[in-house]
């Protein structure tokens, strides 16, 4: 027999071809699996889940007042001014925040932990998530675990009565994360436009409860 002539440990041509053939089949299977996964990824139009939501300026909550809920756009609107001293039980600067926080923010309604819809708790003066107990301050900064980051923010624009854009929220870098800065509304603002297509992640600042030494 031909195989008998091959030295021990050597490879016959037949064996070698089998390996090549097997490897090409394995490669093909991997490619087919990749294509199947690609096939199964859902198709949806870009921007299908975002939109521009105009909000008349008189629907804006008062300075540091409890937030206003906009379920259709999946956001909360808050009006912040830590320099005013109003509503300090809800919104006061933490020890690592030297600059005052002033302006309007649109905060995404979905908890950054595992996608539940958190709610404003009036008695505890903070956002609370019913699923795993994450807590957030009025401006969306996280107070308690297990949220991995503060709440996500949408782009806010200020429009005058003629629907001309007066100002657009700047981005700011907080804790190495680019997010929207609160927008100070210019005089003459009639409408606030929230673009839920433009969402930026919240920053992963230290937990407020750690700074206050009040973690459960």
């Amino acid at each position, binding site marked *: 027999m031909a195989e008998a002539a091959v030295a021990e440990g050597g490879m016959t041509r037949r064996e070698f071809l089998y390996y090549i053939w097997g490897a090409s089949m394995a490669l093909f299977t991997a490619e087919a699996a990749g294509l199947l*996964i690609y096939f199964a990824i859902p198709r949806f139009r870009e921007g299908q889940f975002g939109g521009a939501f105009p909000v008349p300026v008189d629907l804006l909550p008062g300075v540091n007042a409890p937030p206003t809920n906009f379920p259709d756009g999946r956001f909360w609107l808050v009006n912040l001014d830590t320099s005013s001293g109003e509503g300090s039980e809800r919104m006061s600067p933490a020890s690592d925040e030297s600059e005052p926080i002033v302006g309007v923010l649109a905060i995404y309604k979905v908890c950054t932990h595992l996608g539940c819809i958190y709610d404003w708790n009036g008695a505890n003066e903070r956002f609370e998530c019913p699923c795993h107990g994450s807590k957030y301050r009025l401006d969306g900064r996280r107070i308690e675990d297990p949220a991995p980051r503060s709440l996500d923010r949408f782009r806010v624009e200020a429009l005058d009565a003629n629907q001309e854009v007066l100002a657009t929220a700047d981005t700011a870098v907080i804790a190495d994360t680019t997010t929207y800065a609160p927008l100070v509304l210019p005089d003459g603002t009639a409408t606030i436009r929230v673009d839920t297509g433009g969402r930026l992640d919240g920053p992963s600042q230290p937990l407020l409860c750690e700074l206050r030494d009040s973690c459960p």
Partner: protein
Amino acid sequence: MATFVDQVRELGLKQATIAKVDEAVERLTAGLNVNDIRDMLRGEEPRRPNPRLRPHADGFWLHIRPSFYHTEVTHIYPSFRLGWLSTFMFVWETITGIFLMVFYTPSPDVAYADIWNILGNVPLGQLMRNLHRFGAEVMVVVVALHMLRTFITGSYKQPRQFTWVTGMVLLVLTLILSFSGYLLPWDQLAYWAVTVAVSAAEATPGPPALGENINLLLRGAPVIGAGGLLRFYLLHVLLLPLLLAIFFFVHYYKVVIHGHSLPPGREAIGEDTAKRVPRDERTYFLPDIATSELMWSALTILFLVAGAIWFYNAPLERHANPLVTPLHVVAPWYLAWSQGWLKLADKVFIAFIFIPGLATAFFLMPYFEVGKSRRYADRRLGISVSMLFIALMWISNWMGSPEYLVQSSPDQEVAQELLPQEGHSALKEVPYDFLEPGTYTPFDAEDAPNPYLAAALEEFERAMQQRSCSLSDDGPYEPCQVMDQGDTVRYGNRFTNDAMPDPEAQLIIDDYQDNMRRLTLVFSAPDPQNPGNELYAYTRTGYRHEMSNYEEETRLLQ
């Protein structure tokens, strides 16, 4: 070969027909004729060669079953029939599931209405749904107990390590199968449990696009909707049962190849005699094991049907609402431990390091526990550790409950006990006619106009007592424990360190419309440090329609 006509000529019509029937029975049973079957039923010894072995050799249905068992393993101990029961439950779930599929369409537009149709309109529909849901939970319990038993009797030791590995696959598939069915009713319970589970996939370590795409694959869209429901439906009714069936056959083949392990004390340490069964210790499948399995089937069906009729009702909450996560949302009990752990630490660590690490440890356990002895006295450490693990899981399950780390403010917690967003309560169960309009305090139970309302008000008082305190000694509640925390002052009582000081609480029932009554809970408590400021001010409203038939629903779904 003589034709039937020839046989009739030779034997007469009657005898020829009997012979033909006998032949047909022998073919159908792959080897047993009518007399052989009657011999079995009479309890007689088989003729030689033993025809009762032929269905195992020649027939399809019995070829995977052993033709005899060691008599030692046919008793309740050591197997408790748990492996067999797991298989039975899988078949049971398949059958009841197919019946439910007849009346169910996996679309967010109609799925929820389909469930109500099954509950209220389809004859025996509610029973069928209860049987399926109860069966799913029983299956989880049975499979978990089967693993526990296998561990405790050391049956996963050499040569059965791989059987254990396939068993672990079956356990994981059972959990996923049960959980994937959770979404199908498209109620709040379903929607949020599945949203959380799928969101965990987004935390997959690696580039963010990986987690995002895994999430998209499962959800069928950026948020769970029609695509997600269809995907979970197909997983639940097709892919997962198919995988489970495949792994079942691998598992069972290994069980048969190695034989059922004997009780640990019945063989010498290090010996495996399961495949060397002396003739006098054999119990043959036909008729004894088959009869016993029929009896167990009957008993199990009795248990499941009685449970689904009298003791268990599959819950159904309100229609899924992607905009509201209900307070006190919980994972199914068999996954509550994961909800508890997710509250504690980073989700990447819990979902992708801790839980998979634990699962891997379970998979590989038989390859690490290599001591030869299966006897309990020689495995004290392992069995103790397993008991500690079970205790840990009990505690973790409690950590998954709303009591741990997700308590809301006391006013909302009391409102939740009386008028919960989902589920039932003493107040919700008061029949419409007994919701006497008026204003009630938590202490009005004795003066209540009827016993239904009295029961609800007693619950109101109990809930208020737990979450309120009195600043003066003669107040109606527990005395306050005042905790000064620098910038804020908190109040506690014997039960909680988050209590309302001197609260006013009222239940107001009024006629909102014809045939509709409004239930309003009003809480207020002034800030003792800053009178004029409200520390607590909360109102929760619920409505009841005369025709809503809620009491009936309550009985249906409680």
